């Protein structure tokens, strides 16, 4: 597939991007607003020699994805909040079993069934995990269709380099937005990774191996955890990503991801045009959280404002990163006909802090 510009809903962009980067099997179960992804892969995957497989539940989806990953083949899934809740068991399993895959949580309002309108209600679930034990998965938060496309090759590389699920979390507002994205020439990034040292493909070319996430001795459980911890530390050191805009002399820094991070880009431009010293930190990896972005806060900084489409989740990580150097304020909402803070809301709040 040649390079081309497409005008798509961002859920479709996600489907196109992952297939063009090497995903061949997509396991899914219908749920708003993630359904658009599986509708799209059902059409395009056969053209790539792959298949969308609709399962009977998100439990089955996530476990089929694990089975696919055991062969060394790149698989993916896409879902929204309640479906993500059902997948937690298998995400913990895949993290423990070091199985690479691509996942999307098209975030909607929670808790419970919640609502189908967009939200950022699963920051905790994505970065802390609802599954069992001490595990982490890499969490990416693109803020536009183009950024979905741009991050996808890295997502596949991260999944195989670290042998881990890579989870995209995209607020439902960004997911349901239709916009242009430039797709580079299709390339199977998964094919570049040799999985023969670990994939469970039968004993024709290797000694018996088996995937064990449990333990037969207490020391085995400890060893697995130590091995995983060392890997998580490497990821934390090497893979933090964020966008900083004009933080060098800022008096107030806005912190937002996804749609609020994107709005922050406009907000900084607007307020700087009025001579107001506002900067932006937009986390792109939510785990590892970009602590490094907060290491060099300027002397001029008076406070930080976190804006989210929830009641304060990333806020905890920002407070840990700021570590009491300046006050950290919060603006957020979830649900409703306008399920996000407007630029006017954010501007008004910042004006009170300057």
């Amino acid at each position, binding site marked *: 597939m040649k390079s081309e510009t497409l005008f798509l809903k961002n859920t479709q962009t996600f489907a196109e991007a992952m297939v063009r980067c090497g995903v*061949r099997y997509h396991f899914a179960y219908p749920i708003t607003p993630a359904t658009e992804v599986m509708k799209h892969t059902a059409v395009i995957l056969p053209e790539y020699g792959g298949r969308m497989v609709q399962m009977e539940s998100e439990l089955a989806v996530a476990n089929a994805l694990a*089975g696919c990953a055991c062969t060394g083949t790149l698989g993916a899934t896409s879902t929204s909040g309640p479906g993500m809740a059902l997948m937690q068991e298998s995400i913990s399993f895949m993290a423990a079993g070091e199985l690479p895959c691509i996942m999307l949580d098209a975030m909607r309002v929670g808790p419970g069934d919640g609502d189908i309108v967009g939200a950022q209600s699963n920051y905790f679930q994505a970065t802390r995990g609802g599954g069992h034990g001490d595990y982490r998965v890499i969490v990416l938060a693109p803020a536009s269709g183009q950024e979905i496309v741009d991050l996808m090759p890295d997502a596949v590389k991260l999944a195989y380099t670290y042998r881990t699920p890579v989870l995209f979390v995209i607020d439902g507002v960004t997911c349901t937005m239709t916009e242009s994205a430039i797709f580079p020439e299709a390339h199977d990034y998964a094919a570049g990774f040799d999985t023969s040292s670990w994939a469970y493909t039968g004993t024709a070319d290797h000694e018996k191996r*088996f995937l064990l996430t449990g333990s037969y001795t207490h020391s085995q459980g400890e060893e697995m955890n130590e091995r995983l911890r060392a890997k998580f530390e490497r990821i934390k050191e090497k893979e933090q990503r964020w966008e900083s805009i004009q933080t060098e002399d800022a008096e107030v820094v806005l912190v937002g991801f996804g749609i609020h991070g994107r709005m922050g880009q406009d907000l900084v431009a607007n307020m700087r045009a009025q001579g107001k010293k506002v900067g932006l930190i937009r986390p792109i990896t939510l785990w590892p959280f970009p602590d490094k972005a907060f290491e060099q806060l300027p002397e001029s900084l008076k406070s930080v404002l976190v804006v989210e489409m929830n009641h304060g989740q990333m806020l905890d990580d920002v407070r840990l990163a700021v570590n009491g150097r300046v006050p950290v304020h919060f603006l957020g909402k979830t649900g409703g006909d306008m399920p996000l803070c407007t630029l006017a809301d954010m501007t008004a709040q910042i004006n009170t802090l300057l």
Partner: protein
Amino acid sequence: MQELAKIYGDTLLLDKKFNYCPGCGHGVVTRLVAEAIEELGIRQRTVSVVGIGCGGFSHHYMDIDAIEAMHGRSPAVAIGYKTASPDKIVYTYQGDGDCSAIGLAELLHGANRGLPVTCFMINNNLFGMTGGQMSPATLENQVTATTPKGRDVHVHGYPLRVPEMMADMVGAKYVAREAVCDAKSIRKAAKSVRNALQCQIQGLGFSFVEFIVPCPTGLKLSVPDAYKWSREKMVEYFKPQVFKNEVGQNNEN
């Protein structure tokens, strides 16, 4: 061991220490599965997806790759595996708790989907590994660790017959219930294991075999009494039979 390998082939790992309790029916079924894999010449392309419970040990006695899945999810894992690697032979090895309690949805949808994977359900009619609690297959009035006065069907429902639910599913091509309570039933069970795997090799569709096995430890009976109990009580309710056989060859049942 070298000499034994000449007789038994490469699949069974004969020097592996046994984890099953004395008299456990798993030992018989594990050996039947290993012998069928050996006989069909599929060892190097076979992958076992085992459940949580005593059946999880089964792959350790075989020279094949294996995946130890989360409790009840083996059929879904097997389907994902088979989707990505259709040339491999994938079978699940699960207990009655794994299959018919926590994993019933994955099992039945797996059967209905009809992808050529094989599920073996080893029914010892209780949760063995956790110490003999009631499972869906526990008989009416049977005393277990969690039914101290016997299974009250008005509270806990009736013993669940699993292959009967699959018999009408178009995607399921070989469906059987066997017992391993005596020599005769073991010989029949061996045939069903071969047929189920043959069904997959031929790409016909889903195959399933339930095995009625004794669990002397869980039943708190001596080994002979546990076999007698399974042969009489279990087999009376869970009748061994081939429900469906669309396998072209080895159609001996």
